[in-house]
């Protein structure tokens, strides 16, 4: 493994948890109404990585998910399409075929998702296979055990190796913040991932709670901002896990707007990893138009 990051600094600024929580509470007090809300709902749809990551996933399940991605709601033909469909490596092929020509990316988790407890060679092989099968994006997990044990160089090198294995595919680095324990560790992991080649940093696998809490996401956004201000390089952000309502999503967009600014309000730089968020957003869009509260059964699974 190339030790390209051996000399990189693993210093990160300190984070005060209570201060972060207060900032989040203040951001949550923003009130998004009318046109601003509708615009945010459309933006949210365009940022969704529609995801299925279950042991029971089959080609049939993935085809169904892709169909949903292609047509979110038949009654609203002018909706944006989601950003990507996110599946396990074995199902990248079927997703790729189903989505062909749609402009919707296929993302694949890899690196022995979700635990990441496998030999590096196997992780790299998995990444290569996913990319060969057509994955446009790779969502890797960091080795939390090594990271928490203080082996930052190992963690950084592993990310760099995966990045190399990705080739042209874009790399999202999952920190699994629910296992990191402190916001200081979230910040350090974010900085480490960005310095090691991440195109995106991502909160969670969705298998561990808490997942994409707002304080965690804010700290990651601030890390992205500082990285940009220092290097000019724009890294993307993907909260995943726990964002299931339109209201949650809009709060995240507010947080992005006031931390990173307009440039990040774009599917190229911001994604939601979610399975049930899309339908709640659709309910809100229909309600904004009709004034009538909607049932989940009005929308396809």
């Amino acid at each position, binding site marked *: 493994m190339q030790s390209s990051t051996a000399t990189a600094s693993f210093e990160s600024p300190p984070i*005060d*948890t*209570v*201060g972060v*929580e207060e900032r989040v509470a203040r951001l949550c007090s923003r009130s998004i109404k009318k046109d601003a809300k509708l615009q945010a709902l459309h933006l949210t749809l365009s940022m969704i990585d529609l995801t299925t990551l279950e042991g029971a996933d089959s080609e049939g399940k993935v085809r169904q998910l892709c169909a949903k991605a292609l047509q979110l709601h038949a009654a609203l033909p002018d909706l944006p399409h989601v950003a990507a469909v996110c599946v396990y490596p074995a199902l990248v092929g079927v997703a790729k075929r189903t989505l062909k020509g749609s402009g919707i990316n296929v993302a694949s988790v890899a690196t022995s998702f979700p635990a990441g407890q496998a030999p590096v060679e196997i992780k790299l092989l998995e990444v290569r296979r996913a990319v060969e099968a057509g994955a446009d994006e790779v969502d890797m997990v960091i080795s939390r055990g090594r990271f928490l044990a203080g082996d930052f160089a190992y963690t950084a090198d592993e990310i760099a190796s995966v990045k190399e294995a990705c080739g042209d595919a874009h790399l999202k680095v999952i920190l699994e913040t629910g296992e990191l*324990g*402190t916001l200081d560790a979230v910040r350090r992991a974010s900085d480490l991932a960005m310095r090691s080649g991440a195109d995106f940093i991502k909160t969670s696998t969705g298998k561990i709670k808490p997942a994409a809490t707002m304080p965690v996401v804010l700290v990651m956004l601030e890390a992205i901002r500082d990285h940009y201000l220092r290097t000019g390089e724009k890294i993307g952000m993907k909260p995943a896990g726990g964002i299931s309502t339109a209201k949650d999503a809009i709060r995240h967009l507010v947080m992005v707007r006031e931390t990173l600014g307009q440039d990040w309000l774009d599917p190229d730089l911001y994604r939601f990893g979610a399975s049930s968020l899309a339908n709640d957003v659709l309910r809100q869009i229909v309600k904004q138009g009709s004034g009538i509260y909607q049932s989940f059964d009005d929308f396809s699974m």
Partner: protein
Amino acid sequence: MSERRPAAASHRLPVLKTHKVYVGGKFPRSESGRFDRTLAPDGTPIANICRCSRKDVRDAVTAARAAQAGWAARTAYNRGQVLYRIAEMLEGRSGQFGALLAAGGATPDEAAAEVQAATDRLLHYAGWTDKFQQVFSSVNPVATSHFNFSILEPMGVVGVLAPESPLLGLVSSIAPAIAGGNTTVVLVTGSQPLPATTFGEVLNSSDVPGGVVNILTGRRDEMLAPLAAHRDVDALLLCSPDPDVARSAEIEAVHNLKRVAVRPHEDWTDVQSPYEITDLQEVKTTWHPIGS
């Protein structure tokens, strides 16, 4: 020591003492060179004392300010030991103070009782130095994720108009001020200043850092106004039963919003409580987040 009669051939002529003021741990005379005569109740002159000027007040405040941060930074335990040491020294000089009080008109029993009471009072406040904070500070259960506490801090430099009560009153006004980490400028303007000037000697031999207590003698109408108006004095302790004295000093104190405590007592026997300390303390509230 007040014996001024010519000595008979067989008698030894006593050595008389020059009573000086106590400023910054030294015993200077008034910069003004002026003096006042102290008289016994029967009108006999006993001693000359310094008649201090506003410039002496200024110098004393400078000394008190210079000493304040260091005195406040001493541990409470250490301040307690220093006050205890004052009590020890006073006890050792009880005969001398008894004689001074008797010369001022007290009966021998009264004089002895006052010296004992003053000594015990020092002991009382020596014991408070490391306790009043425990009794009067608080941890405040605020509704946010913060550790919040209020502690007492000394006000700083306290100007003391000493009471007429020459020893017990004097000690009762100084001890709680310095027990809490303040430094003092003490104006002795009563009819019996000699216990105060002599008390300066006790302080000087008691590990009290120079400048913590500064004792000036002289006339109230010359010293109180400049002290009360001085912008580098943080608080006043006015021990006077005369409401006009308090009023005029309070008006001068408005310049920098000095805190003012008034003690109109003439009998100081019962003027002893931790509130004498806390009345010369500020409350400081500090917040800090509780997080990880």
